[in-house]
């Protein structure tokens, strides 16, 4: 056991409530460095609320749904029918049945459509939770599948020409400046040891940093009480870039995920992560 003294127990229980005022504390000078969040994460230990989202995701995988009353167990995530272990770590990848490079979120929707007979457009219209929601099916599935790759090496396929083309396009988009503020992904993510306000920024052009960042998504965001996926992360980045809305499952979304995954290749999947 880690903490047995009464004091530690009291503090432990206290912190576990994930108080909202933790965010307010960020303005206190003594907490200006990142250290306090590392301490907080240490206290949380392996207590990531995502454990329950993982359970939910597994339940969704085996639940009969849609007009075909089928489960997702016959879904091919790239490693063969129904193979979930290690599949996340190899996305995005090319699928011959669609002749496209797909990220895991797009692939799951494809399986819901083809196996369960569900309407892709309906699910794609609201893939992610809004504030106050308790998590979507897609978020739960992605969280479970990420957990099925925990500890494994990030190894996206780059054998097919379309996979390599997707990487090249991702790189171009990463540096593409547009909008009233002239922002690109690179504005915030091509330098090391920088931060916005107090938020540390990973350099996504540098292997070690991108591996740590990419490998930690999906992640439980304590400030939102939800698991967020990489697809959501990209949408929210573009909102802050003052760009229009990034379409779920779009080429740009998959290209940027490919760019990050390939730069991160060789790193380790640690998701679901725990983030502020």
């Amino acid at each position, binding site marked *: *056991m880690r903490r047995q003294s009464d004091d530690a*127990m009291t503090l*432990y*229980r206290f912190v*576990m*409530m*994930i*108080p*909202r*005022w933790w965010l307010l504390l960020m303005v206190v000078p003594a907490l200006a460095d990142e250290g306090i969040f590392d301490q907080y994460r240490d206290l949380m230990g392996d*207590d990531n*609320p995502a*454990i*329950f989202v993982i*359970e*939910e995701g597994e339940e969704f995988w085996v639940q009969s749904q849609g007009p075909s009353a089928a489960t997702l167990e016959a879904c091919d995530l790239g490693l063969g029918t129904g193979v979930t272990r290690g599949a996340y770590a190899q996305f995005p990848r090319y699928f011959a049945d669609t002749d496209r490079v797909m990220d895991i979120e797009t692939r799951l929707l494809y399986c819901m459509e083809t196996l369960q007979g569900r309407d892709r457009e309906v699910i794609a219209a609201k893939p992610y939770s809004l504030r*106050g929601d*308790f998590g979507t099916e897609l978020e739960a599935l992605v969280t479970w599948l990420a957990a099925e790759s925990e500890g494994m090496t990030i190894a996206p396929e780059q054998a097919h020409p379309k996979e390599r083309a997707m990487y090249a396009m991702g790189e171009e988009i990463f540096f593409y400046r547009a909008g009233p503020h002239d922002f690109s992904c690179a504005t915030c993510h091509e330098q090391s040891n920088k931060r916005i306000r107090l938020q540390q920024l990973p350099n996504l052009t540098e292997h070690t940093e991108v591996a740590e960042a990419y490998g930690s998504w999906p992640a439980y965001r*304590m*400030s*939102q*009480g*939800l698991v967020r996926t990489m697809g959501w992360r990209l949408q929210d980045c573009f909102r802050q870039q003052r760009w229009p809305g990034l379409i779920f499952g779009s080429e740009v979304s998959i290209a940027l995920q490919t760019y990050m995954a390939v730069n991160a290749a060789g790193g380790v999947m640690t998701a679901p992560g725990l983030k502020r």
Partner: protein
Amino acid sequence: MAGRIKIRAQKKGELTEVKALMRHPMETGMRKDQAGESIPAHFITEVAVLHGDQTVMQAHWGAAVSANPFLGVRFQGGQAGDAVRVVWTDNQGGTGEGETTIR
């Protein structure tokens, strides 16, 4: 939606570790919606963890606790197979409950 609690209880040495994720909006009453109307306060006021019939933890909560609160508690005693319950009530009279057995 109200009342959903995910709960897990595990024996670790002499202690039983309970983890629970409650689904609750935990509205402070201070926020406004997009139309500028106040969103009514709606938050959990009391939480308890029970081992069988015995209350092993009781807490008074308020609006400062985040949405979808995650609770971790450890207590002494408890054997594999024993029932553990987490219950809450909120300021609007809502209640929630989750039960599991110690693993």
